[in-house]
């Protein structure tokens, strides 16, 4: 095919094909150049943030601005980490407490409900499962006002539990666990029953150990979602010491105005942990997001 040189007018598509092989390296180079340029644009904001965190307060407001820090300094990190008005450890604890609680609850409720929907027959099963899927369409903005009013009545406003309790179940989590558990052989369950295992025992000792990867994916997605969440803590939390990291970050920014050296340092301290989590669990995270997209 590649060596055929047909008359120009009779077979135009084939004519185009032969030079393409010869220019294969050129195409590949263009492809990589395109992808690398995209990477540059993607990474530049992060680089700008990290560079900003090492600049001095004079340099950050100098005109024209510098790209590389002229006298790189750790002073910003020292300032933030030792600021008595900014108990950063407390805020890390708040965020961790909320995220870990939500993850634990979501993993438990999703795997249990997913197991039941996958492996049991009961009246109204498809209807109930369908309703759960329908709730995925309800936007958070519709739920947030009544949820706030419910929290007021439960006395959970301005409490970290107010961030945990409404998020203890996840429709997406149930869906995902059901899909995964359906793939497990039912003989496993029957064998356990013959050995005298109860249904809770089957869930705890047979199912849970088998669904590790799915739990990991769901757990990481839930963790990142909760850790990064902004609007709900903004509504629920009012006391300064109960803020989670994203709220602290905006509050810090409003305190320091154009002190971007400090704001960027604080951003690094909030953004980088989640980027590390992402780097470690990349495979599961990408898988999970693909799945959540293809629901």
């Amino acid at each position, binding site marked *: 095919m590649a060596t055929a040189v047909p008359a120009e007018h009779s077979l135009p598509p*084939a004519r185009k094909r032969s030079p*393409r092989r010869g220019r294969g390296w050129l195409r590949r180079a263009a492809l990589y150049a395109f992808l690398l340029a995209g990477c540059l644009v993607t990474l530049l904001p992060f680089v700008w943030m990290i560079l900003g965190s090492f600049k001095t307060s004079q340099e950050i407001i100098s005109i024209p601005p510098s790209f590389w820090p002229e006298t790189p300094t750790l002073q910003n990190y020292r300032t933030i980490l030792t600021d008595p008005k900014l108990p950063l450890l407390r805020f890390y604890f708040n965020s961790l407490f909320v995220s870990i609680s939500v993850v634990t609850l979501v993993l438990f409720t999703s795997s249990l409900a997913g197991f039941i929907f996958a492996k049991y027959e009961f009246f109204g099963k498809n209807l109930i499962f369908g309703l759960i899927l329908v709730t995925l369409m309800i936007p958070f903005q519709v739920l947030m006002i009544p949820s706030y*009013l419910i929290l007021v009545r439960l006395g959970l406003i301005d409490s970290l539990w107010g961030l945990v309790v*409404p998020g203890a179940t996840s429709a997406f989590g149930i869906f995902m666990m059901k899909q995964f558990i359906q793939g497990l052989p039912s003989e496993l369950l029957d064998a356990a029953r013959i050995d005298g295992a109860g*249904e809770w025992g089957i869930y705890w000792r047979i199912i849970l150990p088998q669904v590790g990867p799915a739990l990991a994916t769901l757990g990481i997605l839930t963790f990142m979602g909760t850790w990064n969440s*902004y609007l709900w803590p903004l509504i629920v939390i009012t006391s300064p010491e109960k803020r989670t990291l994203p709220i602290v970050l905006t509050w810090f920014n409003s305190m320091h105005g154009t002190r971007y050296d400090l704001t960027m340092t604080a951003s690094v301290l909030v953004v980088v942990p989640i980027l590390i989590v992402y780097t470690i669990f990349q495979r599961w995270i990408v898988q999970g997001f693909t799945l959540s997209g293809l629901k």
Partner: protein
Amino acid sequence: MTGVRKPRPNRWQRAFSTQNRGRSLFVASALTPLMLYMLFWTLLPVAWAISLAFFDYSPARIGAPPLGFGGDNPFVGLANFQNMFGDLKEAQQFRTGLKNTLIFATLVLPLNLAITIPLAVAIEAIHVRVKTLFRFVYFLPTVTASVGVALIWGYLYHPQQGLINMVIRAVGGSGRIWLTDPRAGFLGVPLALWSIIGTYLWWDMGYNLIIFIAALQSIPREFREAAQVDGANTWQLFWNVTIPLLRPTLLFVCVLTMISAFQTFDIIQIMTAGGPQDQTRVMVLDIYLNAFRYQRMGWAGAVSLVLFAMILIVTFVQSRLLRTKWEY
């Protein structure tokens, strides 16, 4: 229970036999509390939100227990919805929000696709090892906290200290006031809104990218090979083979992108707070401000239902279009 056919009694009998009692008990005892809990945090709030829309409700006023409706929070029927067409200040703000949300979503969608589809095709065309690396990098923004994104981009856009103006000045242009200049615009859309769109695209593209990569991987290779044998060039391959095969995914991605664009809040609230002169005020910001700043929860509830309706319409259109079968 007349005219019940055979399978049904069997199922009931099965459910209540001794052998299965343990299972039924397990399902009932484990699932019932879970489902009631979900009802409590989804169905109850939805019903409550719908009710709110028909009241002039403010949490600051005393109403009748348990929901606080009635009393100083009177039932107003459809007034909240009728007022959306009126001259009230909140109605004008609602219409601004609606307009901005629609502009935002309709610009984000094509721009997002114009970036993510070529990127996905390019990533799919390279060697497997580097593929993972590129995917890793392109997905970094998507896992970043929205607050971090907003602050980083606020700094990038800063008129004096920001990188973007620095680059523009370095190549001989003059810098712009990206986020706060009410007179600046491009193609009839305020510059501040464009700036938010830029940030949003950077933040959100990784999501569609990995979906497209997954979809491209699932296209059988024979189709592309057959087209190549027939002499299709790269461009023809892309337009006439890849894109039609991507169509179900494409449709789905369009809906998801629209819906999440409708719901954008964090970066706008932090970067511009809706300004300058409400040019970036979107519906969710409007809902948030009305409900939690101005204590107009009835009105905010009505606006949130309009948003819900928009999402339902987009979803419905998608399900209609998807009913056409594409098979490969």
